[in-house]
């Protein structure tokens, strides 16, 4: 019964995580949902390794084939790795989000593809810094001007039609 509860709670965390990822618009909330999904999967893995009445797999007393009162150590090893991978991915995603915000001035994720397409495409490559690390070592692209790029080359939009 206990294992079933672990499994069910882990599985419902996964479902809530997936639901959050599919429906939220704010990027930080989507990343929170990704972490909830990840916590759910980690719990699911650990509960796959759980045996009722088992002890932590640390050898403090003599054990033999007949007397192995342990839970399974392997899923714990997998989850150990998965947690740290989750941290790495979240840190990277948030760094990208900061850069996204620096440019788009919003945390809402659904960029209006078409509108941006005409601007992005029409802009000549020379003006646009193809790789921000080369132009300004991480500095703000247009120092001082806080004008989001969408409004800037209005002329380009007409020419692109």
């Amino acid at each position: 019964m206990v294992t079933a509860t672990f499994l069910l709670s882990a599985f419902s965390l996964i479902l809530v995580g997936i639901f959050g990822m599919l429906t939220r618009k704010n990027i930080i909330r989507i990343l929170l949902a990704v972490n909830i999904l990840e916590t759910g999967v980690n719990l699911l893995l650990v509960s796959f390794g759980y045996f009722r009445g088992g002890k932590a797999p640390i050898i403090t007393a003599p054990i033999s084939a007949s007397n192995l009162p342990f839970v399974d150590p392997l899923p714990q090893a997998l989850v150990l790795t998965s947690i740290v991978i989750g941290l790495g991915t979240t840190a990277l995603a948030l760094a990208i989000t900061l850069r996204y915000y620096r440019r788009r001035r919003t945390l809402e994720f659904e960029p209006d593809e078409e509108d941006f397409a005409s601007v992005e495409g029409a802009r000549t490559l020379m003006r646009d810094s193809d790789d921000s690390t080369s132009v300004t070592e991480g500095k703000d692209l247009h120092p001082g001007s806080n004008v989001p790029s969408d409004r800037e080359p209005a002329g380009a939009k007409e020419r692109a039609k």
Partner: protein
Amino acid sequence: MEIWVVVLGVLMVVGAIAVLFQRSLRNSIITFGIISLMSALIMAMMKAYDVAITEASIGAVLTTAIFFWSLKRVEEDGYDEKK
């Protein structure tokens, strides 16, 4: 021990739903931190102490901290939830 497992499980799922539907971003991050700690507790209940320590120190503390720092930097850069 059964009761605690069921209570924690239900609390975590309710917390996870709360993270998605809370209005303020700051509250969602705090709720997420609490969920991570609860998941570390549940892992300890499953006798997975290695994973519980790792989940607590990395999953709960550092992930929540990084979320807060990003939120802080975005707010300094002019982000305002009310807008």
